[in-house]
C-alpha cells in the first residue's frame, strides 16, 4: 500500500502526523508544502473531505489514491495500519485519550492558532499583494476556512478575545501539570502526547507566563521533543524555526 504525506513545517498538525508516521513504522513518500502560502489547495491532491476538514490547514496523507486529513485521525490511521503502539488497548484508557485529544482540538488548538497566526502569519499575508492573496483564497473550497484566512490577513482581534486565548493556554498547562505523574499524559505514550505537544510547543514563546510555574510540563515538553520520532519530524523543517510556522486552524466554537 503506497503512502504519500504532503506536510507543512513540523508544527501543529504536521508535527503530529510526521511523528506518528515515524512511530508507526510505516513508510511514506514525503512532499513538503508551504501551508502558510495556501499550498494545501494547490500542490496537494484535492478531495471533498480534505477541503472540508474542520481542522483547517494541515497535512494531507494519500493512501492508495485517497487523500485524507485531520491530524488525530491520520495518527490513528497510521497507528492502526502500522505497529499499533500509539493507542491504549483498554476501552476506558481509549476514552480518556479521545477526551484529552478533544480538549486539545476544541479548546486549545483554536486559541493557539489565533495567537500563533497573529504573531507569525498576519505579517506574511499583509506583505502579499491583494491580487496574490485573492488567488490564494480563491482556491479554498470551504467558505468558513476562507473567511478565517481573510480574518488572519486583517489580524485585528479585540483584547478580550486575545486574553481568552491566553487563558485557554494557561488552563491547558494547568490541566497538563495536574495530570502528569509519570513520563506521559496517560501513562503510556500515546497520540495525546503528540497532539498536545504539537499545539503547545509554539506557545512557550507566545504565552511564557503559562509555563512559568509548571516544571512537570516543561520536563514533559523536553521528553516529547527528545523522542526519535519527534526529532525526525523536526528534521523535516525547511525554515530555521518551525515553531513560527502557522496557518489558519480550527475555528473558535460558535455554539456552546
Amino acid at each position: 500500500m503506497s503512502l504519500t504525506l504532503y506536510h507543512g513545517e513540523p508544527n501543529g498538525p504536521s508535527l503530529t502526523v510526521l511523528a506518528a508516521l515515524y512511530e508507526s513504522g510505516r513508510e511514506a513518500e514525503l512532499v513538503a508544502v508551504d501551508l502558510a502560502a495556501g499550498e494545501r489547495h494547490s500542490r496537494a491532491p484535492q478531495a471533498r473531505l480534505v477541503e472540508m476538514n474542520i481542522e483547517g490547514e494541515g497535512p494531507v496523507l494519500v493512501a492508495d489514491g485517497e487523500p485524507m486529513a485531520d491530524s488525530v485521525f491520520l495518527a490513528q490511521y497510521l497507528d492502526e495500519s502500522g505497529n499499533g503502539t500509539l493507542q491504549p488497548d483498554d476501552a476506558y484508557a481509549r476514552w480518556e485519550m479521545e477526551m484529552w485529544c478533544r480538549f486539545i482540538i476544541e479548546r486549545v488548538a483554536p486559541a493557539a492558532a489565533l495567537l500563533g497566526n497573529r504573531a507569525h502569519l498576519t505579517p506574511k499575508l499583509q506583505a502579499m499583494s491583494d491580487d496574490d492573496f485573492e488567488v490564494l483564497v480563491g482556491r479554498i473550497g470551504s467558505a468558513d476556512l476562507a473567511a478565517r484566512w481573510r480574518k488572519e490577513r486583517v489580524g485585528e482581534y479585540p483584547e478580550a478575545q486575545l486574553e481568552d486565548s491566553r487563558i485557554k493556554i494557561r488552563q491547558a498547562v494547568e490541566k497538563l501539570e495536574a495530570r502528569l505523574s509519570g513520563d506521559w499524559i496517560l501513562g503510556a505514550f500515546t497520540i495525546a502526547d503528540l497532539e498536545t505537544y504539537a499545539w503547545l510547543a509554539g506557545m512557550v514563546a507566545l504565552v511564557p507566563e503559562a509555563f512559568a510555574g509548571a516544571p512537570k510540563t516543561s520536563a514533559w515538553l523536553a521528553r516529547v521533543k527528545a523522542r526519535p520520532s519527534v526529532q525526525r519530524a523536526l528534521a523535516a523543517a525547511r525554515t530555521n524555526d518551525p515553531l513560527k510556522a502557522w496557518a489558519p486552524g480550527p475555528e473558535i466554537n460558535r455554539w456552546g
Partner: protein
Amino acid sequence: MRNKVTLFHWEPNANSGKPMLALAEKGVAFESHYLDLLNFDQHKPDYLKINPQGTIPAMIHGDRVLTESTAIMEYADNEFEGPALMPADPKDRWRVRWWMKFMDQWLGPSFSMIGWSIFVGPSVRARDPKELEAAIERIPLPERRTAWRKAIYNLFSEEELAESTRRIGVGIGMLEEALAKNEWLGSDQYSLADVNGFNLGYALPMAQPALANDEKTPHIMEWLRKIYERPATKFIWAMGRAPRFADRVKFLEREPAA
C-alpha cells in the same frame, strides 16, 4: 453491581440518542435515567454530582463515569461484546471518524443553533424570568450558559443564523454525496457514524423539506428509513416521552405498497 450500565439521557434524539442507540445495537441492557432538558434537570445538584459539567448524556459503567456522546459510543463499542460498530479497515475507520467530528463540531452545532432558536428557546421562554435567570446561573460551563442565554432571550444574530443555514445546506449535499458512494456513512458497514448521523438528521425531511426529499436526496432518505427500521432504533424510540419527537421520527415510515 460491578458491571451495571446506567445511562442519563433526555429524549432519544441528538446527543442523548447516540449512546442509547449504540448500546441497543450492541445488545447491552442499561438502566435508564430520563432527564428533562427543558426542565434543566441536567443542572440540578443530584446530576452535577455525577457529571459536574452538567451535560447530557452521561454513562456509569461499574465505577467509571463517562461523558460526551460520541466518546461514550466509542467506549461502548470497544468495551462490550456484540456486533462491531466500527469497520475493521483503517481507511474506513478514518472516514467514520471524519464524519463524526464533522457532524459533532460543524454540522451539528448549526442544526442545534436553529433548533434552539425555533424550539428550545420558545419552549422555556414563557417561564418566570427570575426562575430562568437562576437556572442559567446554575449552568457550570460558560459556553453552555451563553448558549442557553441566547436561546432563552432570542439573542441569535441574523448573521450566525444565516451561517448555520448555509452549513446545513452544504452538509446535506455532502451527506448525499457520501451515501451515494457507500451504503453507509463512510463505509459499507453500519457504524457509529450512522448512529451519529441518524440522531443528527432524522428530522431533516420534515424540518428541511426543500433540501432533503426523495427527489433531491434519495440516498439520505433511504439511509434514514433503513436506520429507522432497525429493531434497535424502534426499541430506543419507544423510550421517548415527548410526543413532539416521536411524531417527527414517524415521518420516516414508508408509504404502504399500493
